[in-house]
């Protein structure tokens, strides 16, 4: 149950990719016949992706993943507008692919504003408006958060950006395939997505770039992707991404309804059976599969290890799982004290999860938390 981290490649997707590894391996930028076939496949994949987010095919650029897409958006727009001053607005709860890139750009002389969020992880669109300056050249706010699942008011933020003539980027890596997206309706100029988050292959992503958006290249070289993203095209990867997104969008309504039900039962069950626990993130405006709960007096990595022994994969915002000092910046940003941030558990449901999986977790977690609390010097004892 760690579908937000990565998902397996679906059988249909693997099937679609297979022929392109060897027999149909033509270099799509060459002229001969197998190459032409490859080119057709790439262009039809591009159309599939475009359709899924309401874009035009020539606004879709294939990349090596969400990280590259985010880096390209930030570094590319900042550098293309360097003369204008290039102030960037983002939020405090972005993925590190945004935050660490922003921090690097800061060091290179591009000022960055990191907007705070409320206790449920929501950004006030008004705060974006207030942060805009004459030199703001990019607003980058994620569609949905990877840790706490909170969904932002992308449309409102997009229209504020457009009112000021500023391009709007959104990291939709967690959202794509799972909730409806429309670059048109939501006034999005740049959008990142990553295939392995919706049962596609790892190492494949997309950056949507609205026609006319000023952005420098990040990877220079050959003329692929209309001279905007060099590198021999990863043909099986492209086919895999498009196939996976197509299926995800096709099944979205049905599947997200089912997953949302599982999620809500899991949340309710955990809060009910484990004392001293609280839900992190927004109660309703959250990703269909995201569950994030803090358990007082215990530390997250130790929960994960015991869950692992029950065959359950999960994740935590505790620093101890990452070998760093501070717990999740997202959990701190929504106001959690350190101890609670260290005691967080993220379970993310996806394609293939069932009622039974939820039962397994609901059976395992209370005992695990109790066991760890019994060792904990912080635990005041069972509720009477």
């Amino acid at each position, binding site marked *: 149950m760690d579908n*937000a*981290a*990565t998902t397996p490649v679906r059988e249909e997707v693997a099937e679609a990719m297979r022929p392109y590894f060897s027999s149909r391996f033509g270099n799509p930028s060459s002229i001969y016949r197998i190459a032409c076939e490859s080119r057709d496949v790439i262009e039809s994949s591009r159309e599939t992706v475009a359709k899924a987010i309401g874009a035009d095919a020539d606004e879709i650029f294939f990349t090596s993943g969400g990280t590259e897409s985010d880096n390209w958006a930030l570094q590319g727009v900042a550098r293309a507008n360097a003369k204008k001053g290039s102030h960037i607005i983002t939020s405090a709860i972005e*993925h*590190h692919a945004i935050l660490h890139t922003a921090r690097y750009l800061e060091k290179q002389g591009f000022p960055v504003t990191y907007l705070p969020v409320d206790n449920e992880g929501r950004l006030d669109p008004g705060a974006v408006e207030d942060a805009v300056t004459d030199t703001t050249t990019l607003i980058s706010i994620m569609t949905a958060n*990877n*840790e706490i699942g909170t969904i932002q008011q992308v449309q409102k933020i997009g229209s504020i950006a457009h009112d000021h003539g500023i391009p709007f980027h959104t990291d939709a890596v967690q959202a794509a395939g799972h909730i409806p997206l429309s670059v048109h309706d939501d006034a999005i100029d740049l959008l990142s997505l990553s295939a392995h988050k919706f049962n596609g292959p790892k190492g494949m992503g997309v950056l949507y770039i609205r026609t006319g958006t000023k952005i420098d290249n990040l990877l220079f070289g050959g003329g692929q992707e209309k001279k905007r993203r060099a590198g021999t095209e990863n043909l099986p990867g492209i086919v895999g991404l498009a196939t996976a997104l197509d299926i995800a969008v096709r099944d979205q309504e049905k599947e997200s309804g089912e997953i949302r039900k599982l999620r809500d039962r899991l949340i309710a069950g955990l809060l009910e059976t484990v004392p001293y626990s609280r839900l992190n993130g927004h109660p309703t405006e959250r990703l269909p599969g995201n569950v994030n709960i803090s358990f007082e*007096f*215990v*530390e*997250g*990595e*130790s929960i994960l*290890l*015991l869950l692992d*022994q029950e065959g359950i994969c999960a*994740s935590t*915002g*505790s*620093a*101890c*799982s*990452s*070998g*760093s*000092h501070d*717990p*999740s910046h*997202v959990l701190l940003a929504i106001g959690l*004290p*350190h*101890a609670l941030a*260290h005691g967080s558990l*993220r379970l993310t449901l996806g394609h293939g999860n069932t009622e039974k999986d939820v039962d397994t977790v609901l059976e395992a977690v209370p005992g695990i938390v109790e066991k760890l609390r*019994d*060792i*904990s*010097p*912080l635990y005041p004892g069972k509720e009477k």
Partner: protein
Amino acid sequence: MYSEKVMDHFTNPRNVGEIEDPDGVGEVGNPVCGDIMKIYLCIRDDVIVDVKFQTFGCGAAIASSSMATELIKGKTIEEAWAITNEAVVTALDGLPPEKVHCSLLAEEGIHKAINNYRIRNNLPPLPEEKRNDEDPTPAVDQR
């Protein structure tokens, strides 16, 4: 990632609990770092005859605490003082590099508890060397 020894001490920690009226007690770490260890000593004729601990922390922290208490049980105070976090790590068949700092908790806890015992017995505390908790790598992020 963890050795079998670590997993054994983590899932079945030895000497968990409190000692009422301990001869020495030490608490180290803090919730900001995500690691807190409390250690209780029962000492007779300079020998640690009983020891208990409570730990809030990751698997490595809990396993280190457990192993450390095993290592000092039955030892003289002097011997216990000399037990380093490296000794704990070795006894655990190693820890991942980014987790080695968790074992410092145990060493520091023992020192603190022994000094607590010394102070109670009007002995000057021994110098507690604060070890450098260097930046552990590689870090890993939430996806």
